[in-house]
């Protein structure tokens, strides 16, 4: 999504001064033009009839009734908008100017809306926009936590493949401790501690003993799966009171939660989601604007240089690997206390690996990770909506959709990404 934003790199700029102007970068306009064609095809395929749209929930203060929009007309209008975005991008590219993000976002959202119109026109079912967005956020939450953990660890030079294990350990600890204490909030304290424990193992082997970090991460995932499944089958099975359901209550924020559309989605959530907002904002500022962040990145990019100016490389790595573990562990609480569920075996079901993809697609930045996680959550949610609306596509193909999006996103749109230079390399003085 953010692939082509930094087209004129500093190197290219200096080269441009000496050499004839470089050829215009037509990549983004071409992608947008293809998107316009796809949207037009979708508009052509849209059946006659109206799409029923609902943008309020039953508990909203201001009720907006379900309204119908004409399917075909809307689809063509959206096609024109995508086409306009593509044309504008061509003009900008010709003038060798940067294409702003909003052009790409507008085109993407229009194409998405055209898809929604295509699958819902002429049907009695509604398109629950609020439900769609709320579901997207719900599915994106563990991915955001996992990706943020990856950002912190990899920025400091430690590859964190163990996100999956940290999520699972967090889910387990949150469920068990919350059951013992009888309060879901206590589970939110236990979850990051479990993540820290897994992070500590990762740091211990990869920093202290310089074991290949990818191997340690994979092994830790297997260890956590084995350990939690074993405890689940033995201790928790014999003592069901240790694994009862506790749920974080929903805390609507006054006023904000009454904003139509976005209110119920963003501000009618539980504490874990509010914590996620805070952590994203804090990390985005701290990593790029604070002394801690500068040191973090220095250690991940050029540890020798960092060492020369007096930064203790391995101590910095230790601390931030633990911090990353805590973030992922907290995210694990999503699966149990934040969803009102007891712990179930392997209930993270590979979300940690999708989080890893979100981190790469988000180019190792917190806001990028959020954007990528939302794209993955949305594709999952779209698949679910398409099945609910009985789109005549075999179920197996629908199940593939989120993974196809992941592959396309990572391989296609991420373009040239650059990992922190010293990532995965143990630092020995």
């Amino acid at each position: 999504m953010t692939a082509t934003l930094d087209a004129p790199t500093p190197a290219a700029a200096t080269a441009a001064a000496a050499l004839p102007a470089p050829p215009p970068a037509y990549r983004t306009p071409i992608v947008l033009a293809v998107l316009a064609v796809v949207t037009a095809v979708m508009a052509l395929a849209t059946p006659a009839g109206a799409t029923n749209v609902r943008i309020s929930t039953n508990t909203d203060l201001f009720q907006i009734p379900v309204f119908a929009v004409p399917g075909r007309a809307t689809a063509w209008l959206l096609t024109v908008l995508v086409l306009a975005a593509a044309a504008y991008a061509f003009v900008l590219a010709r003038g060798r100017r940067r294409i702003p993000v909003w052009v790409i976002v507008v085109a993407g959202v229009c194409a998405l809306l055209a898809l929604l119109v295509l699958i819902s026109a002429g049907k009695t079912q509604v398109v629950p926009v609020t439900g769609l967005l709320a579901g997207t956020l719900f599915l994106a939450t563990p991915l955001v936590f996992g990706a943020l953990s990856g950002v912190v660890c990899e920025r400091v030079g430690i590859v964190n493949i163990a996100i999956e294990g940290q999520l699972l350990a967090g889910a387990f600890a949150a469920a068990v401790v919350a059951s013992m204490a009888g309060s879901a909030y206590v589970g939110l304290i236990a979850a990051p501690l479990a993540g820290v424990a897994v992070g500590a193992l990762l740091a211990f082997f990869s920093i202290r003993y310089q074991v290949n970090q990818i191997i340690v991460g994979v092994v830790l995932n297997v260890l956590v799966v084995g350990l939690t499944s074993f405890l689940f089958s033995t201790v928790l099975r014999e003592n069901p009171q240790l694994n009862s359901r506790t749920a974080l209550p929903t805390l609507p924020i006054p006023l904000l939660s009454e904003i139509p559309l976005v209110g119920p989605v963003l501000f009618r959530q539980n504490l874990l989601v509010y914590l996620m907002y805070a952590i994203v904002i804090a990390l985005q500022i701290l990593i790029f604007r604070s002394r801690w962040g500068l040191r973090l990145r220095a250690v991940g990019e050029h540890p020798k240089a960092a060492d020369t100016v007096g930064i203790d490389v391995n101590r910095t790595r230790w601390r931030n690997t633990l911090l990353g573990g805590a973030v992922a562990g907290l995210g694990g609480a999503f699966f149990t206390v934040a969803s009102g569920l007891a712990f179930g075996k392997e209930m993270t079901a590979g979300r940690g690996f999708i989080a890893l993809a979100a981190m790469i697609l988000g180019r190792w930045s917190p806001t990028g990770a959020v954007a990528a996680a939302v794209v993955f959550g949305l594709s999952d949610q779209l698949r679910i909506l398409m099945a609910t609306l009985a789109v005549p596509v075999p179920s197996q193909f629908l199940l593939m959709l989120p993974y196809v999006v992941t592959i396309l996103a990572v391989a296609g749109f991420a373009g040239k990404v650059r990992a922190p230079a010293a990532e995965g390399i143990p630092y020995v003085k």
Partner: protein
Amino acid sequence: MKKSLVTVAGATALALTLAACGSAPDSGSDATGEATGGAEATTAEAIDVVDGFKACMVSDAGGYDDQSFNQSGKEGLDRAAADWGIATNAVESTSDADYGPNIDSLIDDGCTYIIGVGFLLAPAIAEAAQANPDIEFGLIDSALSNPDFSPLVLDNVKPLLFNTAEAAFLAGYAAAGMTQSGTVGTFGGLPIDSVEIFMDGFSDGITQYNEDNGASVTLLGWDKAAQTGSFTGDFDNQANGTTVTQGFIDQGADIVMPVAGPVGLGAATALQSGGGTLIWVDSDGFLSTDFGDITLTSVMKQIGQAVHDSIKDAAEGNFSNEAYVGTLENGGVGLAPWHDFESKVPAELSAKIDDYKQQIIDGTFTVESENTP
């Protein structure tokens, strides 16, 4: 560095070993042991067990505490051990890659009758059965097929199948009669026969109710004619069950039947907060889950009973490769009691459901499904 690797590998191996044999020794006497509901007709008469007989079981990745079919299968095995003092062994698979090695380890352990729980074990069972013609196998929920999907019948493999469409039909009829909003939903874990057969029967029950009563109850999540519908993609990620169910609720559904093992628990939380009602599958959800208060009924599959009976046959030396098919008639499938909903289900609806049950048993009414075993 070398040392630490060994430590990690050792710890992992230990954890895995522990996980693998974790639930083997107990004998299903816990609370969920009662979940088999109607089929408690255990008459533990003594039987002549063939010398050296040992009944064993391999779970699929769900494990023996999935509150679903692996658990039911294990209960049947444990009951056989308790009733006749048969030697047993059960191993749990943690991933799809474990099936073959687990079966091999049971063969090495001296097992003579090995039951694989679930459709996903079919290829591994077929391979092991062909390599070991003197060992008998049972396979729950699936018949064997060749790699080109043509049916495969082996002399030493007995498929244990369930015509769950019959019971799901009754559940669909009940759901259509009980819905306030006129919309109900169903979704599966993976699009496989043993899941889709529930959805087929459920869909037919709703259609039949609409015909009988001139109603227009709609079903979300399954199109029987096209055989497409809603699936979460696995039997682990409970959050997906919540999202799918929330999607149904957004469309006005008030009764949902998840056919997805533990993922159904995610559906239950969404229904609980959205004021909906649940229809559980495989076991009696009123007893086996803690969502009894919102469980209208359950489509039960008496896997435990089928396992128990097939072990008896094999132990007496009467093994046959003829498929066992559980039906309403032989009690292999059934609809659970209403429990908390007893007073809320209208008497005429309940009577109509009993009537259909009798017609299906008599053979005067058949539930058609292309997923019927």
